[in-house]
């Protein structure tokens, strides 16, 4: 994609033909209720609280954060599985919020999801052919007159499964193969965008690489755009072009893969990166270790001002009073939501040549 980062982050409101997904200040509050018969709303869990980004054609946006930061809710919002409390989500220029079910169904042909758990996301009583073909029951027009069985076998072939296994059941496959079934299902309607919600975290290491490579191959082959939600920062670095870091429902830092991993400016990103174990014992003493104190506060009652201030070593009075906006900060070239944003090299990328072996 283009390397003009300033334009990637601050596009004009007009519809850029290359932008497939535009998310503007989207919020999702889940009400907290009390009482049995007469339920009163006593507060809200602010799962996603004002997130904006664009996704361009052929691009992968990695969304990282710890559990409870709202990244999966964001994925569900993008899919239209939850309707946003506020804000707008535009897919290929069409507003998704407030659509009627029929219209939503038509729009959803262009956005599909791959779920985390390949064991519970496939119906054990359906054959692989039924699972991968189910989207065609809802959208028969997507077959475009092709023979259904042939289409399904081609799909299985594309994701690296044996097309002859079309009549098998999910339990006859291993974890990695099931995830391929899930991917084939997501691909069947030829979507433009695929939301991947922790697609490799349930897989074993040796199988994970197979699936990650498959995602990359499919992107090249079909020009797909991915929103890749994961907690594993190593996988995200590998696959993403741009990365959004979330904390308690907010995006705290957004930039190119290089910028986020090379020169992170938000203290949370820095702490997150420093906590990732590197499979190289020589790095033991040489890495900056920022060990955060305490736990993530409750999203029902987030701290005032900056949400990270309760665990931040840079926090001052202003952090409690004024919420830092996600904007380009001095001394840096990407978006960061910290009053004291300052680039800091956390991960020392080895200047390694193309060959992997030492």
């Amino acid at each position, binding site marked *: 994609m283009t390397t003009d980062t300033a334009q990637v982050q601050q596009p004009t409101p007009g519809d850029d033909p290359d932008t497939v997904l535009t998310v503007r200040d989207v919020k999702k509050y889940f009400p907290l209720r009390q009482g049995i018969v007469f339920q009163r709303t006593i507060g809200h869990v602010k799962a996603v609280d004002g997130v904006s980004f664009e996704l361009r054609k052929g691009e992968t946006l990695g969304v990282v954060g*710890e559990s409870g930061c709202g990244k999966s809710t964001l994925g569900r919002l993008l899919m239209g599985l939850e309707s946003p409390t506020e804000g707008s989500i535009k897919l290929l220029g069409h507003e998704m919020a407030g659509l009627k079910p029929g219209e939503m169904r038509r729009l959803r042909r262009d956005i599909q999801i791959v779920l985390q758990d390949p064991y519970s996301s496939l119906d054990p009583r359906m054959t692989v052919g039924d699972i991968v073909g189910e989207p065609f029951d809802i959208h028969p027009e997507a077959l475009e007159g092709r023979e259904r069985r042939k289409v399904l076998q081609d799909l299985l072939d594309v994701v690296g499964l044996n097309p002859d296994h079309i009549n098998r059941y999910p339990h006859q496959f291993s974890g*990695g193969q099931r995830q391929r079934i899930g991917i084939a299902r997501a691909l069947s309607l030829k979507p433009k965008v695929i939301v991947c919600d922790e697609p490799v975290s349930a897989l074993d290491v*040796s199988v994970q690489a197979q699936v990650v490579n498959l995602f990359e191959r499919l992107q090249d082959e079909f020009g797909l755009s991915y929103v890749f939600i994961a907690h594993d920062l190593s996988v995200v670095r590998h696959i993403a072009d741009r990365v959004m870091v979330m904390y308690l429902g907010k995006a705290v830092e957004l930039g190119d893969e290089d910028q986020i*991993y090379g020169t992170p400016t938000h203290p949370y990103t820095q702490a997150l990166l420093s906590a990732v*174990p590197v*499979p*190289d014992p020589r790095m033991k003493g040489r890495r900056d270790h920022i060990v*955060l104190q305490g736990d993530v506060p409750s999203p029902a009652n987030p701290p005032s001002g900056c949400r990270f201030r309760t665990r931040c070593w840079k926090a001052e009075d202003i952090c409690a009073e004024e919420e830092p906006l996600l904007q380009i900060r001095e001394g840096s070239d990407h978006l960061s939501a910290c009053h004291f944003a300052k680039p800091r090299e956390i991960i020392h990328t080895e200047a390694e040549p193309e060959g992997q*072996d030492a």
Partner: protein
Amino acid sequence: MTETKTDVSAGPAKSPLRGVAFDESAPLLEVEDLKVEFHTRDGIAKAVNGVSFSLSEGETLGILGESGCGKSVTAQAIMGILDTPPARIAGGQVRFRGVDLLTMDEKLRRHVRANKIAMIFQDALSSLNPVFTVGWQLAESFRVHQGADRKQAKVRAVEMLDLVGIPAAKNRVNDYPHQFSGGMRQRVMIAMALSLKPDLIIADEPTTALDVTVQAQVMQLLADLQQEMKLGLILITHDMGVVADVADKICVMYAGNAVEQADVYQIYETPAHPYTKALLESIPRVDQKGQELTVIKGLPPALVNPPPGCLFHPRCTYAQDRCKVDVPPLYPVPGGRASACHYWEEVMGK
């Protein structure tokens, strides 16, 4: 810490372990040719097939492997908490300070389990009893094993919670497990494991369920406490990053076999087994930009009817005809290492 009349490290005066001849000069733990089988409907599954290693005090051994490779079963066999049946220990020895635990009387073993070897499990929420307070569960070991009364035991429980860094331990001791966060629960598990001052801790995927920042906290706590108390630590994990950070030596397991054993620096620098090498090449790294990942083809073998020869040969890029017939023994490799590959020289040389 207030010392009560019961001396913790030696166990209470009435400890049945007093009669056991632990040899303090023998290695802390020696596992020799351990074999564990599971009897299933389809036949006998060799979950652990002749694993050997040893560990001394203050040392950390990382057991690395994918799900189903037998790493947890090994841990459970050492602890003596395998369900038998379906499991059966088919052979081998587990010597703690020179005494074989596998032939030990179950009553005695129970005391070993508490006072000498302790275990930390992956899922702290399901390892803690939801209907008792954390303090009560923590105090239980003092009551049962040291004959402490309730009051004493509770004081000890608070001390332990303090030790593992739980803020306001005095108040939290009366809380139930669900009132703790994931990281805090894992701290409670660590406190529980350390409460009787064991010499050896087995941690089975202790941080897998945790977020990275919390994982860093818990691993640091574990490493600090290990240093302080000179514990032996067996860390079982699938995460090649976590072991690289804390382990002194590593044992890589594949389909029930230990395929490579080496010092942590050696194994990351020049792996001597194709499986280890392929694993290292197949993981994305946070300190490296995206190049295509090297893939290990296929799947781990079924344990019931494993392929003949080397179990890794169907997925191995170094495999030759010999690998399909000959089961490779654990060859010694210079530098005090071992590799179960006929062609380890080639693997290291390339």
